[in-house]
């Protein structure tokens, strides 16, 4: 967690228009993880900070979902660990609104599968590719590379998705330009690695996706649709 990405508790409250009561209640219910509370000493004394993007996204989610869900249900949904065993009914995908044929096809889901449940692996692929497409930084060829990387991760590492719940794994899309004798070429790479992975300075990180985070988000989105 880098400093510039932190937001103070006071700023969270004003920015999101919520009260201390709500924040402490959500913390008690486990809706905001303990490890997001970062204590720092400032000149006024101890203050609490949060990873900015994550806390704002989580609070937006809670506010949206609390209309239809009891807080305890919400806690259950958030706590339910993402794992290989998660399966989603086929029709819930269409309710998400962003799964088009092209995306489904890319992640190996064909029209003929319309009756079978969606597996965790397919969900992860859908979520990652969707997120990369939104950013528009990655070329279609690179998307294919990402899809194949995820496929391979699943094939070679049995508990890949279960592992995501325990340690942060990022999917990186990288580019490197090689120049020699007046000819330059660019190669693209996709890799799944830890958050703290270092690349040589000539490598450009085109985009990266927090795999556990994105799966979590998708899980919540699906729960929202159910209500």
């Amino acid at each position, binding site marked *: 967690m880098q400093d510039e990405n932190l937001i103070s508790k*006071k700023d969270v409250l004003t920015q999101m228009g919520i009260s*201390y*009561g709500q924040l*402490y*209640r959500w*913390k008690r219910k486990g809706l905001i993880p303990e490890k997001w509370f970062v204590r720092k000493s400032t000149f*006024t004394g*101890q203050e609490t900070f949060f990873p900015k993007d994550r806390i704002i996204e989580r609070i937006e989610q809670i506010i949206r979902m609390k209309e239809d869900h009891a807080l305890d249900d919400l806690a259950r949904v958030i706590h339910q660990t993402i794992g290989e065993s998660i399966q989603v009914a086929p029709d819930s995908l269409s309710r998400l609104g962003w799964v088009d044929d092209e995306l489904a096809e890319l992640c190996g889901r064909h029209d003929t599968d319309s009756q079978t449940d969606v597996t965790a692996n397919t969900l992860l692929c859908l979520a990652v590719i969707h997120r990369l497409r939104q950013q528009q930084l990655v070329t279609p060829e690179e998307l294919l590379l990402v899809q194949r990387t995820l496929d391979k991760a699943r094939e070679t590492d049995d508990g890949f998705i279960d592992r995501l719940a325990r340690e942060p794994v990022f999917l990186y899309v990288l580019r490197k330009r090689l120049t020699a004798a007046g000819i330059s070429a660019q190669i693209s790479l996709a890799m799944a690695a830890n958050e703290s992975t270092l690349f040589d300075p000539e490598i450009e990180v085109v985009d990266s996706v927090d795999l556990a985070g994105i799966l979590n988000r998708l899980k919540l989105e699906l729960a929202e649709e159910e209500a």
Partner: protein
Amino acid sequence: MSGDNKLDKRGSASISGAGTISGGEYERVSISGSGKITGDITADEIKISGSGKIQGFARAVRVSTSGAAVFEAGIVADELRVSGSTRSHGTTEVKELKCSGVFKTDSALVSEYIKVSGSLSVDGDVSSEIFKTTGAFRIKGLLSADHIEINLAGRCEAREIGGERIEVRRGAWHQRGLILDGLIRIFTGSSASLLQSQLIEGDTIHLEDTEADVVRGKKVVIGPGCTIKTVEYSEKLSVDEDAEVGQRKEM
């Protein structure tokens, strides 16, 4: 009298002398002498009025202790009433805790309604919807509840306090016991009944006889007897003339 243990046909167990029962499922378990339960136990009711030690995890609808009880692996119950002295090693998760005796845990306390008229000591965090005390408490972690109502009677301490409404009032004996309180003040340098905390955060805060480093809230009242280093408020602040506030900041 020793070893007067019986296990009746409804699956209830009682120890009224000295004895040991194994863990398991019971309807009622009562210890009125000195007893030990050697394993995990599930029961509708666990009643300890002598001295009891539960070596396993206790799960019950109702737990009441009026003697000395030790739960060595934690408690999950709808209702926990403590009028003796009770210690819990491991998380205590109860819907309702009423403590007129002494309750101590080296772990966290999770509840919906907590009422303390005796004394409470928690090494972890306390979380509840309602937290009311007219006794003393010492919480090494965070005290978090929607409504916190502290009527000071003795020393109260929590590292941090957070919630929607936080009210700290001078106990009734402050009025009655002015002389006694005055004497204690002379000998110890501070009031016998006060609340100490590093940080108090809430939407509506009313404090009396409180010592804190930082108080943050929407509507904040700093009443008599308070010493606060920094108060930050967003809507309203009033400070009693008999209170000391180092810095005030509008957020």
